[in-house]
């Protein structure tokens, strides 16, 4: 009885699914999905070699410091970094007085109150502060950016498919729109053609435009590619400040586990020796 009932229920579900399949197949045969323009012109991120890649990856501290400089001089005008504290810059190799100086000299001030009148005010950042947001709120950010919202960059390399290579490709990927790009997909006012961006037209103006835009303190030649690579490496660090300790601990844990599992295997064979 229960099996008869089951077969009837089974026929109902398989029948309705087959009905959906039939209509789906007819629609598919009659009007096969066409390749979208976005799909045709879209490019995947180019590979990017960073010191932090791979299971033994470590950060290149000099590169992170250069990346911070690019962020400070180029990105910070529009993009926040509100999960990251100035004090964590010690992980980039700065000592405490240097971190305090970086915080104090940061061009954007931290919202505060006037301690006499209680009115809204702003003050210089200190090491305990997070990186201050460039805009007071979303409305202000959109008003200043042609109604586009510059995302916070703290987690950007984890929050985008493709990670750091995508960020690097996007920064260096601005092009003239190709001649065969349909008119509907041409960048409108305030938009820029970038084949690495998902819908090809991005509201962010090309941020890194020419070699030498930043003058590196360590004398590295500031080519466009170098600046884009450095800031991508820096943004890997802002998203994963734990990466080095994670890799180090992972290696130690794996060495321990291989030894322990080897012993467990020997114990198992030993105990079972009389049963095989």
């Amino acid at each position, binding site marked *: 009885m*229960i*099996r008869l009932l*089951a*077969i009837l*229920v*089974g*026929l109902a*579900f*398989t029948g*309705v*699914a*087959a*009905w*959906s*399949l039939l*209509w*789906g*197949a007819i629609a*598919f045969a009659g009007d*096969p*999905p066409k390749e979208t323009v976005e799909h045709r012109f879209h490019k995947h991120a180019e590979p990017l070699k960073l010191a932090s890649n791979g*299971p033994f990856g470590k950060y290149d501290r000099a590169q992170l410091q250069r990346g911070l400089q690019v962020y400070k001089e180029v990105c910070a005008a529009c993009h926040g970094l509100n*999960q*990251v*504290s100035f004090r*964590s810059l010690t992980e980039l190799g700065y000592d405490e007085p240097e971190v305090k100086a970086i915080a104090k000299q940061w061009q954007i001030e931290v919202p505060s109150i006037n301690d006499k009148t209680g009115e809204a005010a702003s003050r210089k950042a200190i090491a305990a502060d997070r990186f201050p947001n460039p805009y007071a709120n979303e409305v202000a950010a959109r008003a200043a950016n042609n109604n586009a919202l510059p*995302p916070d960059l*703290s*987690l950007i390399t*984890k*929050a*985008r*498919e493709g990670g750091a290579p995508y960020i690097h490709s996007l920064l260096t990927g601005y092009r003239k729109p190709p001649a065969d790009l349909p008119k509907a997909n041409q960048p409108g006012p305030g938009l820029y053609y970038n084949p690495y961006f*998902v819908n090809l037209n991005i509201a962010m103006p090309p941020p890194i435009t020419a070699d030498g835009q930043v003058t590196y303190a360590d004398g590295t030649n500031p080519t466009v590619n170098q600046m884009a690579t450095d800031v991508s490496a820096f943004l890997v660090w802002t*998203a994963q*400040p*734990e990466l080095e300790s*994670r*890799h180090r*601990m*992972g*290696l130690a*844990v*794996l060495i321990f*586990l*291989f030894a*322990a*599992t080897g012993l*467990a*295997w020997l*114990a*198992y064979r030993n*105990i*079972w020796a009389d*049963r095989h």
Partner: protein
Amino acid sequence: MSFSWAAPYQPKSGFMRWIDERLPLPRLVYGAIGGGYPVPRNLNYFWNFGVLAGVALVIQIVSGIILAMHYAPAGALAFDSTEHIMRDVNQGWLLRYGHANGASFFFVVVYIHIFRGLFYGSYKAPREMVWLLGLVIFLLMMATAFMGYVLPWGQMSFWGAKVITGLFGAIPVVGEPIQTWLLGGFAPDNAALNRFFSLHYLLPFVIAGVIILHIWALHIPGSSNPTGVDVKTPQDTIPFHPYYTAKDGFGLGIFLILFAIMLFFLPNYLGHADNYIPANPLSTPAHIVPEWYFWPFYAILRAFTFDFLLPAKLWGVLAMFASILLLFFLPWLDKSPVRSGNYRPTFKWFFWILVADVLVLGFCGGRPAEEPFVMISQIATIYYFAHFLIILPIVSKFERTLPLPHSISESVLHGEQKESAPLGVTVGGPAPTAAA
């Protein structure tokens, strides 16, 4: 506990005797997982996964309790408090990555455990109750995992909560009030986040309780085994401790190695990038997908695309719930008296088709709802329902099964290949006799 030759507990010291006389906890442990639990001697590595699932639950509870000390379940704070755990809490990243990947490994282990049961007929008499309680655990796990994924309050958290609670909106008439009641509002917000956090903290302990019942029910008939032949004599069994504790110890080592590789070197591989974007009710992600362990069911949900008497969406919701609920009837749908798939040549084929089918469903569930993935998931959905509701009842009635070994010891001593060889091919049908 289950067999007459199970060794009764003998306290080794005066102290243990003192405790055992006042609270027979040592006796309980000894009989449940110690030397007093006789287990078939021929269990293979697929019998490790029950213990591994228990370990996975412990990892989740321990890491989860510490995470809860640092997490704030409020819409304005949840995302930032998760990042606070990742950055400012000592080894917070280890806790959170461990908890997120631990959930994935819990499901990997449980899926293997379930398919083990499907292949070796562990759901059959007299172990139906073990199977049913296991399914209850599986449903509780799914609810817990779903609510846990909402807590970081990223984009996928928010939109996942909206889509899944939206499924209840497909129920005619009462659907939308139910959805509003579940969320405590018209869209996921503080009320939903708070109750999800509360339930996410509660349900693991309910799971632990049902696991006790699951193990209790298992100890009545004792463990099944790869031949599916009943335990007949003391020679068929060996004590759980030290034999299977040692084997589980080795299996646990392998499990932890794989877990550590994911946790330390690929912590975000199984996650979704969009969940590192704070929840935004005004911006819908291009592709809303649940975590990978829900993909097969998500594919079934989306396979119903055309109205037939009922709206397509309602069919999808019904099919998704039915795809799990039908497993509760499995012990009565598959009436073959032979438990193990090793001795069921026809069933074996369909079993492996089912494994491939669920993998295909999982693949399609993770893709965007575009052709050809929808058509593939429709074909796979048809097979999924046909397998359990049509093929199994018919196969179990007409299949000619292979001769079974006389006993577990015989199959171990003579080697399985020889025993399962189709010597007496004339034997078959509902009551197979053993090979001579």
